């Protein structure tokens, strides 16, 4: 089975310059890979660094040490050292990301928020909106909300917009940061279906799920992040 | 040229001293060499206020010789205060012959008209110019307008015409209508009616422009291209009049409205008084021409 993403010996710490430069190590020696058609889940308690790992894989957090090799554009690229422009290209073509919270943009309708990633990749706006409608309907977002900007939506509604936005593209790698946190049971099930569908098309998924049921339903493998606690390496 | 003593005045010939005339002639020559380009010159105080044609007078004074025949018109008329005074001025300080007849003049100083009678080679038309900078309406910075001339950035000129059409449905600029000279410099033709613009184009006469207050001289040499700016869908047009001159029945000339009484009576007559008189001498009659005036034979 192809492995489109390989993480080796990655370490991350924060240096807090505003607090006398104290250094907060987050993770160290992070090594794993994810496989196409599988959903890999990062496990461990809060604060173990799951979210930081996901953000490093998306190029959002800088990487102190190690490599994150991504299969991109028929080549292998180290995301840890890639230029901003390359990271942008990887985000456009290779790695998708569903964040925990929707970052709303003033005045843009929910439908266009969802369709935007496709439009950015060059798809015709109307066809992108068609796909967005289908996804929003599947996620049971009331149709009367589609034309409204999501800023005033409830947490659950915003999260469904966010999920639709993340799932609408056909990225070969998809990172999921607690996508089901504020969803009811019915919509959790829809997300499980969506993840299954992605797996079936050969997408490699990597996620964080606090919800035990969802994790059980989607996980092919669980990586225990506590194994990457910085102290363990130091010891 | 040496000073010519006369019994009336003891000024140097044509009022200006010879060094000043040389300076102005250099500016004129440069202007002729670069058609439409505004040449700065050291404008002098003249014995008349700014706005009375000090620029034109300095140009005329610098080119006039004892054998010249001078005509001065103000809005087409030879007999208005400004024209009479300037003519008297040169009679006094240069002792030159003066005329009202366009064809006889070698130098015609004009305020805001070009004579109807076609000018010929060897004649010089001297314009009095109040504001020489055509771009000033939209760009008040002289440093910037000079740069725009230098770099041939004339989009702004069309902005002015655009504004006209947007506000009035047509190009409503009727005087000081901007022209492009020899395909290069955009020039203000002084506040002549746009009716006269076509007369500038390939004119056999030399056209000189003097702006006294603004200290600029520019020129259009004989047979130079002078094209009025316009839009493809709003081409340049001259004014037309729906009736002929009330005195001489001339058509296709520029008419002035003359108020006859305080009951709203008015008539339209040639702005060019010389042209009108010549026509009446030739026997042309408008519908308001006095009966008793017999044509000269």
């Amino acid at each position, binding site marked *: 089975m192809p492995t489109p993403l390989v993480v080796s010996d990655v370490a991350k710490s*924060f*240096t*807090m*310059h*505003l607090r006398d*430069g104290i250094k907060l190590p987050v993770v160290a020696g992070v090594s794993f890979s994810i496989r196409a058609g599988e959903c890999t889940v990062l496990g461990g308690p809060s604060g173990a660094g799951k979210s930081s790992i996901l*953000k490093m894989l998306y*190029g*959002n*957090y*800088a990487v102190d040490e190690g490599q994150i090799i991504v299969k991109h554009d028929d080549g292998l690229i180290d995301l840890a050292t890639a230029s*901003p*422009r390359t*990271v*942008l*290209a990887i985000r456009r073509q290779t790695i998708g990301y569903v964040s925990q919270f929707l970052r709303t*943009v*003033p*005045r*843009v309708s929910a439908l266009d928020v969802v369709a935007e990633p496709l*439009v*950015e990749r060059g798809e015709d706006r109307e066809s992108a909106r068609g796909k967005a409608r289908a996804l929003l309907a599947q996620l049971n977002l009331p149709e009367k909300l589609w034309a409204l900007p999501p800023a005033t939506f409830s947490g659950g509604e915003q999260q469904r917009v966010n999920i639709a936005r993340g799932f609408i593209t056909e990225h070969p790698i998809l990172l999921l940061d607690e996508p089901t946190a504020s969803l009811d049971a019915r919509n959790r099930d829809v997300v499980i279906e969506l993840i299954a569908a992605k797996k079936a098309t050969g997408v490699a998924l990597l996620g964080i799920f606090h919800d035990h049921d969802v994790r059980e339903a989607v996980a092919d493998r669980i990586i225990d992040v506590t194994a990457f606690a910085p102290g363990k390496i130091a010891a | 040229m040496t000073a010519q003593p006369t019994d009336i005045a003891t000024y140097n010939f044509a009022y200006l001293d010879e060094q000043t005339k040389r300076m102005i002639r250099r500016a004129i020559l440069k202007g002729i060499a670069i058609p439409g380009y505004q040449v700065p010159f050291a404008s002098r105080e003249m014995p008349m206020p700014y706005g009375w044609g000090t620029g034109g007078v300095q140009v005329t004074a610098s080119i006039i010789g004892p054998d010249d025949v001078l005509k001065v018109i103000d809005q087409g008329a030879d007999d208005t205060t400004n024209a009479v005074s300037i003519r008297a001025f040169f009679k006094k300080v240069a002792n030159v012959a003066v005329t009202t007849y366009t064809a006889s003049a070698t130098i015609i100083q004009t305020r805001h008209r070009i004579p109807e009678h076609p000018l010929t080679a060897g004649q010089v038309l001297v314009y009095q110019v109040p504001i020489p900078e055509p771009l000033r309406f*939209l760009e008040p910075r002289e440093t910037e307008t000079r*740069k725009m001339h230098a*770099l041939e*950035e*004339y*989009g*702004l000129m*069309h*902005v002015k015409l*655009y*504004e006209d*059409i*947007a*506000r009035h449905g047509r190009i409503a600029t009727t005087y000081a209508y901007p022209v492009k000279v020899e395909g290069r410099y955009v020039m203000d033709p002084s506040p002549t009616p746009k009716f006269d613009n076509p007369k500038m184009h390939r004119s056999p006469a030399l056209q000189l422009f003097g702006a006294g207050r603004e200290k600029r001289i520019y020129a259009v040499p004989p047979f130079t291209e002078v094209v009025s700016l*316009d*839009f*493809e*869908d*709003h081409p340049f047009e001259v004014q037309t009049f729906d009736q002929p001159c009330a005195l001489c029945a001339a058509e296709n000339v520029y008419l002035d409205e003359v108020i006859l009484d305080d009951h709203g009576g008015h008539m339209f007559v040639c702005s060019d008084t010389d042209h009108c008189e010549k026509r009446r001498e030739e026997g042309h009659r408008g519908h308001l021409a006095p009966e008793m005036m017999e044509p000269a034979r």
Partner: protein
Amino acid sequence: MTDEPLLRVSALSKFYGSRVGCDNVSFDLWPGEVLAVVGESGSGKTTLLNCLSTRLLPSSGTASYRMRDGQFRELYRMSEAERRFLMRTDWGFVHQNPADGLRMTVSAGANVGERLMAVGDRHYGKIRATAVDWLSRVEIDEDRIDDEPRAFSGGMRQRLQIARNLVTGPRLVFMDEPTGGLDVSVQARLLDLLRGLVTDLGLAAIVVTHDLAVARLLSQRMMVMKDGRVVESGLTDGVLDDPRAPYTQLLVSSILQV
């Protein structure tokens, strides 16, 4: 995506006597990229913008621009005529104060049409139709086309300035605090509009702002400046979510939360 950048900036410095304007700034900008330059007043971000847009000549360093024919030209070796031509065709400059970028005494339509006339358009009807189109794209009612910008609100003026700049289809737009001095609601509308236009037209832009929220919304890349030097640069979300330079951490921690 093009293989070559649109703008290459190398070791650009500007000194005002012994005072540093900006010091040793280098970066590449690709077509369609929006680069935010952030920092507080006096950090050199406006000096940098003015050097890049050739409104100011740098003390040292180079900047090359890829012209429409694909050839790179050294900006500071161009003649003034060429630079000014670039400025009104292939570039735009959106000033913080719209009065600096608009002709306040001519109509909105003429403000938009001026660049077209400057490049030789001589058909009134077509110029006006283009102006109408652009006014609608920046959400100004067609019936305001003959009004002077003096009669416009601040937000409308700023949108008009944007239309005036974009009408010739520039490939690179410089923006100096484009939302500065506007009410928050007006800001939001403008930002959204800018965002849409930048995406639709594939514009590259360099946006100077002290407002990190504006930078996050508009830009993909960011440079943080302090005392004339670039202290941190990278992806906008990266710099904002994981700031590493002490100064950036201070900036980010100073954002007010609502």
